[in-house]
């Protein structure tokens, strides 16, 4: 087992994206994504069995395309990494089994990685900045948390998380109420561009003085969702883009208040924003503004690396290789609910 070059191929199948990325150390070589999202759009959400079938169908082609993009042969890969959780179990298993097949065929090490850590680790690519310590705001369809990253591959602490819906889930639900379709994030982002973010004063969950005692860095989006649905019910002639913009403003505002608060409180002056919701244009804009005002260094991965992808899996795999961490055991088990305290399996 030689890791001389640190070329790592990463596989991601935790939800509806079949994705393979290849990195060499901290350099991105390839990032290929095949999505079954259009097949799920008809159902207004991801159907696990449809996602799993699509992963198996897409996998060989996605692996080949990634190798082509990187100009490599499979034999050039030094190590493999795969998302082992959290995610849909049937979907994860397609990824872990494919990765095990590649690693065993070539007798190369395999690292099972945590999907959430991978979202943050993608920040390491194509740059040589110091990675840790950092505060990370991780916002996606399944997760909304504020993390303290002392070491990406071994020491990530959760400072706060959502007590009900994830931010991305709230986007999906409100998009459904507004009949904007699925997935909701991009749809609301576009609709909101024509609206006034200050038109409606939607609530900011868990920001009152009494909430801050037990939930300083926690989020709650269910009250916001109820408020939007009540507003729509009692305002038949509402302007939809104003609702989109005001809802989006409420989400972005509360996410940033808490994330920047965590950075300021901890004295860690770097904030990483990662996960699918980090692709939201209003969140990106407000984050620039507020981080600058607070004297915090802000890092947000490029849009294409915010949503689920294989490069992020390869990236954390490469960090593990560089640190000389032991690979995962043969027959690593996918864990649908694995926590971030275990970045590498």
């Amino acid at each position, binding site marked *: 087992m030689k890791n001389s070059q640190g070329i790592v191929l990463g596989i991601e199948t935790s939800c509806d994206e079949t994705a393979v990325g290849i990195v060499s150390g901290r350099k991105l070589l390839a990032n290929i994504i095949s999505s079954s999202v259009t097949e799920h759009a*008809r*159902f*207004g959400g991801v*159907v696990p*069995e*449809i996602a*799993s*079938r699509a992963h*198996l*169908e897409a*996998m*060989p082609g996605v*692996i*080949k395309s990634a190798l082509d993009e990187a100009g490599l042969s*499979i034999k050039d890969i030094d190590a493999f990494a795969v998302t082992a959780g959290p995610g849909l*179990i*049937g979907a994860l*298993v*397609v*990824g*872990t*089994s*494919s*990765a*095990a*097949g*590649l690693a*065993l*065929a*070539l007798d190369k090490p395999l690292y099972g990685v945590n999907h959430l850590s991978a979202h943050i680790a993608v920040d390491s690519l194509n740059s040589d900045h110091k990675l840790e310590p950092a505060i990370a705001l991780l916002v996606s369809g399944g997760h909304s948390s504020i993390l303290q990253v002392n070491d990406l591959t071994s020491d990530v602490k959760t400072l706060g998380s959502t007590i009900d819906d994830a931010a991305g889930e709230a986007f999906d*639900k409100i998009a459904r109420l507004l009949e904007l379709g699925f997935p909701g994030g991009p749809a609301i982002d576009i609709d909101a561009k024509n609206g006034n973010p200050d038109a409606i004063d939607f609530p900011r969950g868990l920001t009152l003085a009494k909430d801050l005692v037990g939930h300083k860095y926690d989020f709650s989006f*269910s009250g916001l*969702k*109820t408020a939007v*649905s009540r507003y729509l019910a009692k305002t038949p002639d509402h302007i939809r883009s104003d609702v989109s913009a005001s809802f989006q403003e409420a989400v972005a505002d509360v996410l940033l208040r808490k994330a920047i608060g965590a950075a300021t409180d901890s004295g860690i002056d770097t904030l990483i924003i990662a996960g699918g919701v980090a692709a939201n244009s209003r969140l990106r804009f407000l984050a620039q503004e507020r981080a600058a005002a607070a004297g915090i260094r802000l890092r947000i991965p490029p849009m294409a690396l915010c949503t689920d992808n294989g490069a992020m899996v390869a990236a954390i795999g490469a960090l593990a290789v560089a640190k000389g961490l032991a690979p995962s055991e*043969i*027959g*690593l*088990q*996918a864990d649908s609910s694995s926590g971030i305290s275990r970045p590498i399996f």
Partner: protein
Amino acid sequence: MTNFLLIDTSTSRTSVAISDGSKSLFEKHHDGALSHGEVLPKLISEALAVENKIDQVIVGMGPGPFTGLRSGIAFAMSFAFARGIPWSGVCSLDAIAADVTSQDFFVAVDARRKEVFYARYTDGKRIGEPGVCQPAQLIPNQIPIHGEAHNEYPNPINFVEIFKNSVSYCEPIYVRRPDAYPAPVGVKFRALTQLDLVPAFAIEKAAYGKDGWTMAQLKEEYGGKDRMYVAGEFGGELIAYAGVVNLAGIADVLTLTVAESHRRKGIGRELLRRLIDWARTQKCDAIMLEVRVGNEEAIPLYESFGFIEISRRKDYYGPGKTAIVMRKELK
């Protein structure tokens, strides 16, 4: 010599073998694996320690429970790709049948949900493609049934012969469709109004006969702050309706009915999702419903939303008509 790596994960048994085409070089299996994905790589690395030169991979394509099945196929495909060797798929049931000497028999394996995947074999040949049914449906044929129920599992050593003598499969043999139906195209969902009660009663009567609500009951159940009704409309006509009530923090589905001519279009799924969403906005702890025993369309739908059976009520829908009570936690 061609060395074959043979893999099957279509049943609760995970099996790996290596054959040189005429004799077995390695054979091992693991029973009752909760996770094939965990066991398979371990068996493979044992196999490779015995014989690392592999020229072709053959994998069982099922039918079988989907997640386990896919783990074997995904492994086989990428192993073959990484080694630059071919892979092929065969029907897993054939590898049980190959060990049976009877003239005419069924092979059946567990398909979950109290069903089996099966195929019939006569004179050593499979008749048609595998199917899925309840085990009791095979019994009246009065021919032997081989398979998982009798501890007979696909033996991958048989894959080499099967591969040489029959068509290979390049996709998993799923038999069942995913629990999702095409989108309800052209169906509009909105709140149920007073004006809908007459057409709703017509649908109710057609669907349940005299077990259904009377017009008076329908009027009484409709309305009230503690409940919500949703309607599905197609071409300006009511075709479906559903209602839910919040009883002290537990939501109870009052009705969910789709006109016969519009079933199997995903309308029930959409209605149910709206009821669940409403129950969540009411901060309900759980949502419950009753369904007739043997309603094979509705039960899988409810299960796919995470409803589980908690009890049964005898004579709920009239004498001899038992209801299954199902519950889904929302907290």
